[in-house]
């Protein structure tokens, strides 16, 4: 009985806190995306700019680690039984990727464009047997170019 109460409390806590954190994070993401909308982030390896006009080219990167909440994990484990889209993890990946991009943009400062952008994702704590920490990291990196006016 105690087990069940603990389980349900954790579930409620996970849902409440997780939803709150997610909403707050998305608000912040949207805000910052709007603020940095004029810094192009492209996957092209090169851009058609004469070399003498490029004042600097440097590596920029941003990484974000987002944790799974208890509710999402239980929901995903239920999905493990039946199969199908693990919808509860979709928003985590989405947030991690966008946050990583935003941090990369922040690092780029007032660059003109970021080229050759790649995004990579990895799970953290997957191997630590019983104590599954269950976080994921997204990392975005690219080359920030500053062009003379």
């Amino acid at each position, binding site marked *: *009985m105690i*087990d069940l109460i603990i389980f349900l409390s954790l579930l409620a806590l996970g*849902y409440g806190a997780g939803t709150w954190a997610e909403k707050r994070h998305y608000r912040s993401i949207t805000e910052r995306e709007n603020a940095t*909308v004029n810094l*192009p982030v492209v996957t092209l390896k090169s851009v058609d700019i004469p070399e003498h006009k490029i004042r600097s080219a440097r590596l920029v990167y941003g990484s974000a680690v987002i944790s799974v909440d208890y509710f999402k994990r239980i929901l995903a484990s*239920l999905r493990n039984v*039946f199969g199908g889209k693990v919808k509860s993890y*979709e928003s985590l990946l989405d947030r991690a990727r966008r946050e990583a991009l935003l941090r990369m943009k922040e690092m780029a400062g007032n660059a003109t464009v970021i080229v050759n952008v790649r995004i990579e994702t990895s799970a953290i704590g997957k191997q630590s047997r019983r104590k599954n920490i269950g976080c994921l990291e997204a990392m975005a990196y690219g080359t920030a170019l500053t062009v003379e006016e």
Partner: protein
Amino acid sequence: MKFTARQPGINVNVSPTHPLKEFAILAGGLLAIVVGVYLALGLAVDLIVPRLSMDLEKKLAGAFVGRLVENEDVADTTQSLQSLVDRLQDRCAPLPYSITVHVTEADAVNAAALPGGHMVVFTGLLAEMTSENELAFVLAHELGHFANRDHLRGLGRALVLMTASTLLLGADNSINSMIGQGLVLTELSFSRKQETQADEFALETLFCHYGHVADATSFFSKIPEDGDPGRFGHYFASHPENRRRIGHLEDLAQKRGYPTGHPLPLPVDLAADKNPP
């Protein structure tokens, strides 16, 4: 054309389904499957049980009733009950069982039919008895459970429940410890129908043995309304249920023309226990 940077406005990477809705569907589905399997296994057990041989039942029962130990303090009572059961069984309730009566000191007003022909009677029940006929009815009711092999059905379902809960919750969960208390397991799963059949069996046995059905229903009506019925006490599980059972027994007695005679006093051993000097 001038390019203007702007956000896409929609997020295609996150499904719009509400997580609580998804949770309800998945958890509900899983629960439905578990319940379905439990019911199906329970049904399978119902089909198998009547074909189980006595030998096998005794072997199976060992695991559950192995810890029933004889208490010296109530040896006389046990003997007296045993002889009453033997007499009932001898003339009127021929069962393919050798019934062994165990008296357990507990306040519960209850008795239980356990696998392997073990009948457990609590001293709390004996304290409520006022006549031999009343006692005989309760004992015959338990014999009725043996006759219909209800106690085995309870056992089978309990085993299924135990297996399921172990798979889902691990070995040391609360459901298992509840079932593990042994006496609970048969009580838990006697259905209304099984109780009614055992009642009918008891009434017939009573008529056959005494030639009348005096005090057959007195036990039910004697339990105080506000009395603690115990957790799974099946003699007085709920009061409306008892009234139904009394009504059913009286109807049956009338229909078959069973006379009401004079109840016999309690056997000496039991009467002595009730009023210690």
